[in-house]
């Protein structure tokens, strides 16, 4: 613990933070010291933490602004839930079924990420941002028009029609019912599975960032032309980061959906993408631990602001603006660094 490298220390402290938080919250929940609303928030918090970490890979590490991250969550949620429901008879044990669902959700979201990434990653900056926004809207629209059912012959799909067009056999079941989404989802997600997913995500992202590929990705972020000129294949590494990010978001989507009894495609809209981006920016770009903390705090924040009643969303907006102003204003920053000189000296705060 004493003679570790700074980066190693940071990694260990991030894992420790998550594990300690889990143990404390689990302990409080066991002894009944957590309010019912907060208990309902535990799985969504885990899902949002995973979303924030994965988006940080695209925005912070790769340096490309994505405004459609919720669409990968949506793909993961719908494919994962379809997998879980249709495998009901084959795999009886709930947690295993959830893991299979998450893997399928991650795969589908990863494939979607690949298909979107190939054309999109040729663009740069704001244009890339608007195209990810557009893809998010397209995926939301497509899922709204999709019907999926399952019967003895397997999965049945129909598009732009009602669920009757599926022509299900006797005993079949409609899973996705167009704009109505999925109803009657078995509640398989637990806080423990959410916690495990957070750990797996941390492991994947932190190792990727520290690997040779991670360094290549960061080189592209810092200077694309310089990176290209030393022989880094830009598209390959951009795609690697983008697809990993999408797949993790897919797994988070499955986790999220399996916590509720119904889920609709419009839940994963532009606002959700923006919300996740807010976690990433407030936590610090490229700072994984920051994302974890920001996602947790901001998800609980409206709950903590309950005392303000009707004003809580307004207060939330004001807090968001004030935090952005105080952390990014040059004049305020110098005042802050004079007050807390140690913060600058040890290089804490945000990772470059």
């Amino acid at each position, binding site marked *: 613990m004493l003679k570790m490298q700074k980066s190693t220390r940071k990694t260990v402290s991030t894992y420790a933070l998550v594990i300690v938080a889990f143990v404390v919250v689990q302990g409080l929940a066991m002894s009944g010291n957590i309010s019912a609303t907060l208990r309902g928030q535990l799985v969504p918090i885990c899902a949002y933490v995973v979303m924030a970490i994965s988006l940080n890979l695209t*925005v912070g590490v790769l340096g490309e*602004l994505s405004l459609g991250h919720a669409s990968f969550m949506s793909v993961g949620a719908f494919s994962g839930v379809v997998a879980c429901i249709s495998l009901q008879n084959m795999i009886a044990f709930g947690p295993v079924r959830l893991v299979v669902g998450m893997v399928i959700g991650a795969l589908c979201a990863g494939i979607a990420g690949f298909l979107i990434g190939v*054309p*999109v990653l*040729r*663009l*740069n900056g*704001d*244009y890339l*941002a*608007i*195209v990810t*926004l*557009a*893809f998010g*809207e*397209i995926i939301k*629209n*497509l899922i*709204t*028009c999709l019907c999926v059912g399952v019967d003895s012959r397997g999965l049945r799909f129909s598009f*732009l029609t009602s669920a009757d067009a599926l022509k299900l056999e006797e005993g079949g079941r409609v899973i996705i019912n167009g*704009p109505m989404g999925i109803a009657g989802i078995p509640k398989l997600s637990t806080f423990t599975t959410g916690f495990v997913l957070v750990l797996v995500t941390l492991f994947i992202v932190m190792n990727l960032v520290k690997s040779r590929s991670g360094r290549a990705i960061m080189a592209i972020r810092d200077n694309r*032309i310089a990176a290209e000129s030393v022989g880094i294949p830009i598209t390959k590494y951009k795609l690697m980061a983008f697809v990993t990010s999408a797949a993790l978001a897919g797994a988070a989507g499955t986790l999220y959906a399996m916590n509720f009894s119904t889920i609709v495609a419009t839940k994963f809209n*532009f606002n959700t993408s*923006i919300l996740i*981006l*807010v976690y990433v*920016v*407030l936590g610090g*770009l490229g700072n994984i631990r920051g994302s974890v903390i920001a996602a947790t705090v901001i998800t609980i924040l409206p709950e903590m602001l309950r005392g303000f009643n*009707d*004003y809580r*969303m*307004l207060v*939330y*907006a*004001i807090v*968001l*603006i004030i935090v*952005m*102003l105080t*952390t*990014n*204003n*040059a*004049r305020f920053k110098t005042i802050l660094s004079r007050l807390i000189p140690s913060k600058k000296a040890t290089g804490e705060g945000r990772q470059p």
Partner: protein
Amino acid sequence: MSFLSHLISGISLGSIYAIIALGYTMVYGIAKMLNFAHGDVIMVGAYACFFIASRYELPVVLGVLVAMLVCTLLGVIIERLAYKPLRSASSLAVLITAIGMSYFLQNAAQLMWTSNPKVFRSVVGDKSLKLFGGQLSISAIAIVTVATCIVIMLGLTWFTGRTKMGKAMRACSEDKGAAQLMGINVNATISMTFAIGSALAAIAGVLLCSMYPTLMPTTGSMPGIKAFTAAVFGGIGSIPGAMLGGILLGIIEIFGKAYVSTQLSDAIVFVVLIVILLVKPAGLLGKQVQEKV
């Protein structure tokens, strides 16, 4: 005939997108930021006009003027309070602040005016022009919208091309440092841009709600996103581009609704956008800037 009437409603919807897109594109051109709160300024403008014209039954012209005044003030205040302190910060920080501003406006509107939809009375009534023996009817609001759009377009072209302030704006969007050296007050120019963009947003809000008469605190957000798309479509930072992008987007949306599927019309709009951006990465009329090594 139905083709013609779809075309006309597409052009008039597109004109509204174009007016909103002008606000986005001017602010982007000069401040290099995506002003996400722009869509909500539209909503505030529509509410202002609603209260003057529908609630207190004062003349419509007064309603439009008050809406423009309110939005201009709002735009300048937002810029001063939220964006000006972040002039030197990263663009992502400004983006998040703009999103915070958008949440703030939406929630403030919800508290003040509740989320119940209000029925907005059209500013020109429901008269319509009948052509070809009544086969083709063009609503008055469509004509007014297209006319307003053309007037605004001509006015802005004259303003940016001929007036001193307009030239200052173009100079600032090209190079802020050099503009300052030439004695241009950069801060005042940016405030002016926000003022013009927000006044246009007020007009767009009134026209939008005259066409689709439900008014809610979230009314502005989807047209805002679409207009932003239109601005990118035409080449962000370019005024004629915003116009062209807005009108094309409106036509595509209405045709998609009429001939393909109402549920998929948004998806069609965005697919066209992606295809255009892949072929012309800087938008239809955008300048392709070569990267210096």
